[in-house]
């Protein structure tokens, strides 16, 4: 696992364009994560616990609302959060992949042109 020069098929993080692409990917990732974790805290710890007694004054069908959040709603929301995360992040990965491919493609084209001229 030592630091070594990139091999065939790998990408070189020392290239500023690639470093930038990685940086952008990471910031987007953190943003998605932050939003989803905020919803996680609001649904589970907020509606399910901290505001449960206040929400219990309202009803959802036969359920007091705070009780429903604690025993049903928050769990369903958790499942949806992970679904959204998987969809968003895998799409983010694809975009990132295409960006790196484009850089690689440009490099190959430039190298090819230089090779032809020699």
């Amino acid at each position, binding site marked *: 696992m030592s630091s070594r020069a*990139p091999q065939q098929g*790998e990408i*070189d993080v020392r290239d500023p364009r690639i470093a930038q692409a990685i940086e952008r990917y990471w910031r987007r990732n953190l943003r998605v994560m932050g939003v989803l974790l905020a919803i996680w805290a609001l649904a*589970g710890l907020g509606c399910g616990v901290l505001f449960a007694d206040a929400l219990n004054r309202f009803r959802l069908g*036969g359920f007091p609302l705070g009780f429903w959040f*604690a025993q*049903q709603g928050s769990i369903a929301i958790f*499942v949806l959060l992970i679904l959204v995360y*998987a969809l968003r992040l895998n799409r983010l990965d694809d975009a990132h992949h295409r960006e790196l491919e484009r850089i690689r493609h440009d490099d190959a084209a430039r190298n090819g042109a230089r090779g032809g001229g020699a």
Partner: protein
Amino acid sequence: MSIKLWTFLFVGVSFGTYLVIAWMGRVRDTSGFYVAGRGVPAVANGMATAADWMSAASFISMAGLISTMGYAGGMYLMGWTGGYVLLALLLAPYLRKFGHYTVPDFVGDRYESTTARLVAVACAIFVSFTYVAGQMRGVGIVFSRFLEVDITVGVVIGMAIVFVYATLGGMKGITWTQVAQYWVLISAFLIPAFAISFKLTGTALPQLGMGSSLVADGIPLLEKLDGLHAELGFSSYTAAFSGSWNRINVFCVTLALMAGTAGLPHVIVRFYTVKSVRAARWSAFWALLFISLLYLTAPATAAFARLYMIQSLHGHAESELPSWFHNWERTGLILWLDDGDGRVAYHGPGAAAANEIFRGGKLGAAELGDLRVEHQRWLDSGGAEGRDGRLALRELGLSGPDRDIIVLATPEMAALADWIIALVAAGGLAAALSTASGLLLVISSSVAHDLYYRVLAPEADEGRRLVIGRVVIGLAVVVAGLLGIFPPGFVSQVVAFAFGLAAASFFPVIVLGIFSKRVGTIPAMTGMVGGMGFTAFYIIGSVYGGMPDWCFGIGPQGIGVVGMLINFALALLLTPFSAPPSDTVRAMIDTIHEPEGAGPGLVIEAAPER
């Protein structure tokens, strides 16, 4: 066909299936043994994770806990599912990208310290053994209650089955067996719940049935429960925060369970078995979806059972008591000590009238027999001789039935078909065995991979490491079985606190290790020792030392949250004063942040060899 015959049939067929899968999934290399060759599809891994996660406690005890606690039971539901959100967003994809075999691998490599690796190994083994002892005990209890064999015989049968598929197939065998076990346990949980829901409310879907009105009198189920609870002196079923379960305690326990879930080694290791980072994310989604099927149904089962429990007991004379009561009275899970009027009175602590329903707890058959004889003498003599058994049991804290009875006896309460009752036995066994095998693999990999190969004998070849892995898992099965046959008193308490300890130790260290390139060895280790030390001290002090809950009134179950904050705070405060991680480690962190395999860095399949 009788219940017993059905039970033999279900248990026999399910065990046979597990063995066939084990034979088909046998492995020849360490990658297959520890991470199933990283070839498990996301859906199957999600199912296996769900079975791994849902233990005998989730299957048998959780609905009972909710049934007795009402609203506050929701903290288990939220804690044990909400943890997966943390796991999916903060840990799973990155640890998969890191690509080694175990959690101590990550801690040891990220913080470049053999000490850190060894501490992680010790924690992983400790948590896993306390957990697995409970599972083996669960196997024995299900066997003894449904098939009327001795608990010891039950544990030995369970051990033999796990031994075969764990040593033959390692993670691969375990994963595919867990997929089968998931189906057994989830159908055993859902079928009775659907049947009961339809019977009580006319709505088959339990999640809706719970919010519907009763067929019998048209009153909404939860309203009826609240009414009965008020009448009998129990605290309200749906109202938030009652007694010691105040806002801060419910909050802390929920959060401790969430962070603890994300820090438990046998759950984290599942995400090493999938093909890619992408699959790790999907796998977390499938896992929680499959888990939520049980966790969304358990609160409904709990409410239905609560109603049956109260209505079929309170105010009835001996001759009117249902047969399930007599069946389970023999096991000591439920007892009735009359005050002399010949009618059952089931009351909570808030009622003026005395409660007459108890459980045997840890009392032996002889002690319970004596208690009953003394109580009868006390009744017959009008209080002159003998002793009031109700007072004795109340002092021992044994008021009300055992919570395990809720899932085990509900199908009988609702008078469902014999085969459904038998299915519950097979489901309980599947839940216990699947969790036990996952934990045993963590123990095996901690000893054979982290301790033996990474620390003691790095030159060991593939064949030798596989042999060691198999020997250790075999030994671990035997030790776990012995712990199940002779359960040490501390086990049940420790399991409840394992989450707090995991939340205060592993969770912050791993999160900081992934998201910070600056936190070095010394701050992380200080945080881990400080957080875990504080949590362990507080738990031991208040459970054994009678220490008052001086920390904002937080009880020992929720104190892991404070330990976690101490851990994060210590690590972050010390970081500016200590050396940053080496370039190698910083490159490694860059690599796990990036999904594409940006070099220079580690190539995943070659990683374990360094």
